[in-house]
């Protein structure tokens, strides 16, 4: 009954209802759409960082974090690999790496780099390198002296594919070790900083250079399909740590490996809520005004209803029902339009190439794929619905308070 009353009352003045519905519609659609774009850009940022040799979690020597040197290596990764195979879901990708600071030099130039020894097969689906656009060939595990160099570093060193470079680093014995490598491929990364910083060689070659037998510095685990909101990495890390204590190693989820980013993510939901509140306030004034107008216009009618014996409570709920219906209609249309916008934009992605250097500075991807999270939908709709109904309380109270005599006196 309330619903039919509310519905009919709403359309007594279609123009006015249409205008305020448009305000709610535009507001909600923008909440959904812009929320999805920013969540998408955060997702890209995190995926970038995780793909940049971080992984969803890593097993390392406990001291490695504060002092990432060869001294803090895992001498025999085999027990770790067995443990991981046992605990992790079967889709997980496991990549052992030997990562140390090194110096790369050509006949004319020298640059500081991070030398990453990788198992070329294991990196597939793990870090960006296996999937990165490559000029030349990817590494092979049995390659004795092959190296992948970033395109930006090639420019700095002034060399071409096929050239030889010498890598120098402090070996396990503390002495400076060096070895010649031939550039098999030049890779392109999303971030020029990565291209400048990382060079990749097969694990075996890195071990030979550094004078270690089976050692690695980290075992990185990537869990396909895990979004940044998931607590799966943290759960797995806790589970692993129980067993790793015996071998003197620790597992850390990416949120611990990237503390600055994860702190920022913690604020993301808060920023989103502020944006929702701001949009709501902008339409809230309109909602309040429109419903108030509708109430004052119908003063005599409310007086009549009261005179006929309708209780103030029912009048209150009738008017509140109108607000509620208004909100539900606006929300439905806004959600649909926002969702449609996201679907449309996801065909091409949002291309930030015009601001590539700026996006890169913050670790964002050049193309943002908007993503709607259920929690955002609930938050946006919840904010508008709850605050909207609260806004409707005042006009509804007003309507319920009119006395028949008072309303008859006024025209």
């Amino acid at each position, binding site marked *: 009954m309330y619903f039919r009353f509310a519905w009919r009352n709403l359309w007594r003045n279609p*123009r*006015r209802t249409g*205008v*305020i519905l448009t*305000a709610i519609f*535009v*507001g909600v659609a*923008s909440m959904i759409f*812009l929320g999805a774009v920013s969540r998408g850009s955060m997702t890209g940022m995190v995926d970038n960082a995780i793909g940049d040799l971080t992984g969803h979690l890593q097993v390392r020597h406990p001291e490695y974090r*504060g*002092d*990432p*040197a060869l001294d803090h290596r895992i001498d025999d990764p085999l027990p770790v690999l067995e443990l991981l195979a046992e605990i992790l879901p079967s889709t997980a990708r496991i990549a052992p790496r030997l990562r140390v*600071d*090194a*110096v790369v030099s050509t006949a004319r*130039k*020298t*640059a*500081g780099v991070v030398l990453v020894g990788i198992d070329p097969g294991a990196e597939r689906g793990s870090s960006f390198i296996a999937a990165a656009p490559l000029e030349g060939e990817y590494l092979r595990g049995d390659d004795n002296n092959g190296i992948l160099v970033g395109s930006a570093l090639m*420019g*700095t060193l*002034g060399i071409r594919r096929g050239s030889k470079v010498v890598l*120098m680093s*402090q070996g396990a014995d*503390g002495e*400076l070790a060096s070895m010649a490598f031939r550039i098999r491929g030049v890779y392109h990364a999303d971030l020029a*900083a990565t291209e400048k910083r990382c060079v990749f060689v097969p694990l075996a070659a890195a071990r030979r250079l550094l004078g270690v037998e089976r050692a690695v510095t980290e075992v990185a685990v990537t869990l396909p399909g895990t979004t940044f909101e998931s607590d799966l990495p943290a759960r797995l890390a806790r589970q692993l740590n129980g067993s790793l204590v015996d071998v003197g190693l620790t597992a850390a989820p990416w949120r611990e490996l990237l*503390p*600055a*980013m994860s*702190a*920022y*993510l*913690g*604020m993301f939901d808060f920023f989103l809520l502020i*944006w929702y509140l*701001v*949009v709501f*306030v*902008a*339409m809230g*004034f*309109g*909602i*309040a*005004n*429109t419903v*108030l*107008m509708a109430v004052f*216009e119908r003063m005599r009618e409310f007086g009549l209803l009261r005179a006929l014996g309708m209780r103030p409570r029912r009048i209150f709920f009738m008017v509140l029902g109108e607000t509620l219906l208004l909100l539900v209609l606006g929300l439905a249309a806004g959600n649909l339009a926002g969702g449609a916008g996201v679907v449309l934009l996801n065909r091409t992605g949002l291309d*930030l190439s015009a*601001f*590539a*250097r*700026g*996006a*890169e*500075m*913050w670790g964002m991807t050049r193309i943002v794929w908007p993503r709607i999270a259920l929690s955002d939908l609930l938050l946006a709709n919840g904010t508008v619905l709850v605050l909207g109904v609260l806004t409707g309380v005042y006009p509804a109270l007003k309507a319920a308070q009119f006395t028949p005599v008072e309303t008859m006196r006024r025209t």
Partner: protein
Amino acid sequence: MEDLRLAWRNVWRHPRRTLLTILAISFAALLLVFMLSLQLGSYREMIDAAVRLGTGHLQVQAPGFFAEPEMRLTVDRPDAVVILLRATPGVTGVSCRSQSFALAASAHRTRGILVEGVDPAHEPEISAVDRQIRAGRYLEPDDRQRAVIGGLLADRLRVAPGDELTLLGQGRDGSVAAGVVEIVGIFRSGVDDYDRAALHMPLVTFDEVFAMGGRVHRVVAAVDRLGAVAELKAALAAGDTLAGLAVRDWTELLPGVKQSIQLDLVSGFITYGVLLVVVAFSILNTFLMAIFERTREFGVLMAIGTPTRRLVRLVLLESAFMSWLGVIAGTAAGAALTVYFSHAGIGMGGAADLLRQYGMEGRIYPWLNGISLTVGPVLVLFITVVTALVPAWRVTRLRPVDALRAH
């Protein structure tokens, strides 16, 4: 004048409705003033932070140095450049810098590092490293064979003030460059990449070790006003003294900073656009209702000979009153809020750690200036005027007879 009075009275025929409309408009104005100030404040901080790391606002370099920083691409007579820059109005600091890659060996560890030759007497004019010392002290003008290094680098090399570091690199002429420096201080700029790699030594020592022969790589200048940089750059590039050299400003030296500001501005204005549209529809009903409930009144006025033109003016005046009141109140409140926070700062909580990676402080100070004070209110005023055109247009279509029949 009479119309003004009439409009003013009409506006207050429904005080509650008028007030809500004014509040909506002032909310938009307040928000835009504050948000724009916040954006501009964070950009200022971002630019300052990047510039403070030793980039400066302007640099004089050899032409190819920016694309490929090679040892042999030098400014050959830096003194003349320094004198010219110092004599240029608006320049607040000038200092020379050179840089090279070298292997640094401590008693325990060996690493590749970035060696920067700085002029201890003038470096504080262009960078903040001297104020970011965490242990020991910064370089002093008569220091020789001494160095300060980044905190993370010190950890990696396992050194502390008092320890020695052996440097091995390549000189400008291709010869082997070797030297020993004593570490006198450790700095923490907050930017991990820099703190992990950088060492500062006196320019004199750098000159000896790397066989620079009095040449430097960059002459760095700081200016008092960001807005003046482009002008200064053009003036400098036009002069004769710098013939054969390149002048670069921070937008070229730090393209990431410039583009991320642009990106943020664009996304900011999209957000504001959406917000303004929502506000416009929010207030449109009030403006429209002012017409519909007074159709009869307008009919009477027309029937007794009031020209439509005057009615339109009346309606526009009424909405203008509300718009101006809203914008003025909102701007004033926004300015007050901004001024308060520009002293108190806004803590960025969890985001502070991330900001520190770009050399920024953990707090952001909104910056109220001519732009942030006016752009938002002008936009709000514009959108309300556009909104007010809708009822005004409806008035022009009223026919007295029909209007009189309305109720």
